């Protein structure tokens, strides 16, 4: 097991190196001390970029051998050798000293991270979707030397969502390659590391815009939420999807607030990672960029739209592979020919209130998500009544539209609503709830602003 842990650690160091290079090119860090302060977001950048690149490599016929991964990550890391962009650091400097209460909250987040990772490293591959689909695909990539059409376009495997994108299986396959074995226990660490990195990244990404105590308190609230604890190390793609989407949305919000183009590039990168993680990511990304384009104002709309198109374009290679190999991309669940058929839709209207109600109920469950949604809702209302409506509308619009896109899938989808609610409702609310949790500190600041122009942020 130790050898497998070390192998996975080396793979993740490759991702970190890739992220460090991209992060330096985007001005996230200039000195080693600054790098230490942005290690978590840089790691997520690395996994996102390396994961997308690995998906493309599989489509191109590569098998993700160790040398290919090392060479690919070295290439991405080389981006750090480019001349640093002008305009100063993208994030404000990390304070040398923190208040004792902030250090206490950091320690609590650290404890949760350690427990999450230890739990994940020992967890058996017991979740149905994990062993039947996500890790199964990673095993197939590793054992069959890449995308074998016999499995990834094979008729018997039709029910395994063959059209789902490849980021998670590709990243797990890289883990197996570096372990030198198919360790279905240790591999859970891979997805758990993403959740852990999100918890540490959020306060850093929001630095300078929110008080540190609220940022770390909110990160802790997300980290101790029972549903996230359950999903983080389960080997499913819902938590990684939520992680990448939260990162994309926070970067987008910061770009709207500050206008630094590097933040828009990060938004596009994380949005591309969302697209490469799960099929549900497509409407989520579309919704995010729709809101960003509207919020950007006339002068920046074209930039925002270009970023959205660039993110969507990253999904083309996989779609081409599916098309070339004759994989049914509807998977039989969403009858695309009928989604504009009034008769079909009208006959299923009853699914909307039941589906929406169930999703909201799952999101509000204190036993699953504690008080994340009620606290965010309260802050949105207070912010909307005060002077900071832009932030409130941005967060509420993205969260509600993401939820609406899921309700739409429930409305038009072929499986029975009971099947959907029983098998996926608990998990599909993860992305909007984690999004609200990520924005809690921002919403608190917005709620505290009484009148326009009165800045209370630290």
């Amino acid at each position, binding site marked *: 097991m130790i050898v497998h842990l070390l192998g996975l650690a080396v793979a993740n160091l490759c991702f970190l190196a890739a992220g460090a290079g991209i992060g330096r090119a985007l001005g996230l860090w200039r000195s080693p001390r600054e790098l230490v302060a942005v290690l978590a977001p840089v790691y997520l950048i690395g996994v996102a970029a390396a994961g997308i690149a690995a998906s493309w490599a599989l489509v191109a016929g590569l098998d993700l051998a160790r040398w290919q991964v090392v060479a690919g990550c070295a290439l991405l890391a080389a981006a750090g050798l480019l001349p640093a962009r002008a305009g100063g650091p993208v994030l404000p400097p990390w304070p040398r000293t923190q208040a004792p209460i902030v250090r206490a909250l950091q320690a*609590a987040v650290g404890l949760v991270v350690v427990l999450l990772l230890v739990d994940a490293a020992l967890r*058996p591959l*017991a979740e149905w979707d994990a*062993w*039947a689909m996500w890790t199964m695909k990673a*095993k197939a990539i590793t054992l069959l030397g890449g995308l074998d059409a016999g499995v990834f376009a094979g008729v018997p495997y039709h029910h395994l969502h063959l059209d789902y994108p490849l980021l998670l299986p590709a990243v797990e396959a890289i883990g197996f390659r570096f372990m030198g074995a198919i360790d279905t226990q240790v591999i859970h660490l891979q997805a758990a590391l993403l959740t852990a990195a999100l918890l540490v990244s959020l306060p850093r990404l929001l630095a300078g815009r929110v008080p540190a105590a*609220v940022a770390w308190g909110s990160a802790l609230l997300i980290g101790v939420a029972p549903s996230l604890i359950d999903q983080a190390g389960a080997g499913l793609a819902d938590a990684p999807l939520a992680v990448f989407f939260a990162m994309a949305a926070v970067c987008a919000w910061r770009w709207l607030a500050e206008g630094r183009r590097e933040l828009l590039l990060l938004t596009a990168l994380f949005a591309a990672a969302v697209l490469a993680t799960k099929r549900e990511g497509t409407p989520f990304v579309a919704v995010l960029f729709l809101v960003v384009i509207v919020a950007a104002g006339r002068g920046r709309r074209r930039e925002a739209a270009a970023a959205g198109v660039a993110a969507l374009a990253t999904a083309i290679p996989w779609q081409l592979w599916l098309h070339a190999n004759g994989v049914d991309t509807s998977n039989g669940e969403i009858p695309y020919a009928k989604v504009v058929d009034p008769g079909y839709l009208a006959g299923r209207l009853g699914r909307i209130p039941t589906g929406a109600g169930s999703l909201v109920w799952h999101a509000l469950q204190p036993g699953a998500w504690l008080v994340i949604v009620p606290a965010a809702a309260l802050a949105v209302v207070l912010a909307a009544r005060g002077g900071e409506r832009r932030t409130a509308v941005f967060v509420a619009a993205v969260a509600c539209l993401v939820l609406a896109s899921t309700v739409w899938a429930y409305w038009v989808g072929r499986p029975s609503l009971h099947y959907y609610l029983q098998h996926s409702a608990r998990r599909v609310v993860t992305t909007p709830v984690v999004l609200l949790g990520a924005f809690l500190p921002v919403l608190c600041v917005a709620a505290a602003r009484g009148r326009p122009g009165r800045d209370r942020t630290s």
Partner: protein
Amino acid sequence: MALRLLAVVAWLPIGVAVAYGVWKALDREGAGRVMQALGTGIAFVAIAWLPVAAIDLAARTRHDVRLSDRAVENAGALHSKGLIHAISQLRATIPAGDTYQLSAYSSRVSFWAYTSLLPRIAVGPGGGADWRIVWNRHSGGSAPAGATELAPGVWVVRAAQP
């Protein structure tokens, strides 16, 4: 349950102390009462729930660390009687790299076979499989001509070469 409740109650003073610390820190920053109330509430709930999260994670870790290697390897199949034994037999019979056609009585059996039998690849009817597997719920049942029953209800036969 009792342990969790006890931990939450015992931990409450810590939660209150941390919440008070957040309240004072936000006060020093001039954050305003609304932000103080929201920030303090969030920090209090998060800290108050920390022992429950820690106990749950530690309990699961303690459970998982005691699992045998066999239980870990077959965690997805533990609730299906006979599945693990049958897969072991099939692995021993069908060489790696060969193809097979599977007719199984349930999707759990099919899915577990697809993942466990890798790098053997399943093919559909008419796909020219090297092996034919029929997996019945109970011992015996319908079977292809010349097949061997590897485990109760699990029949396998090598397809005739053209």
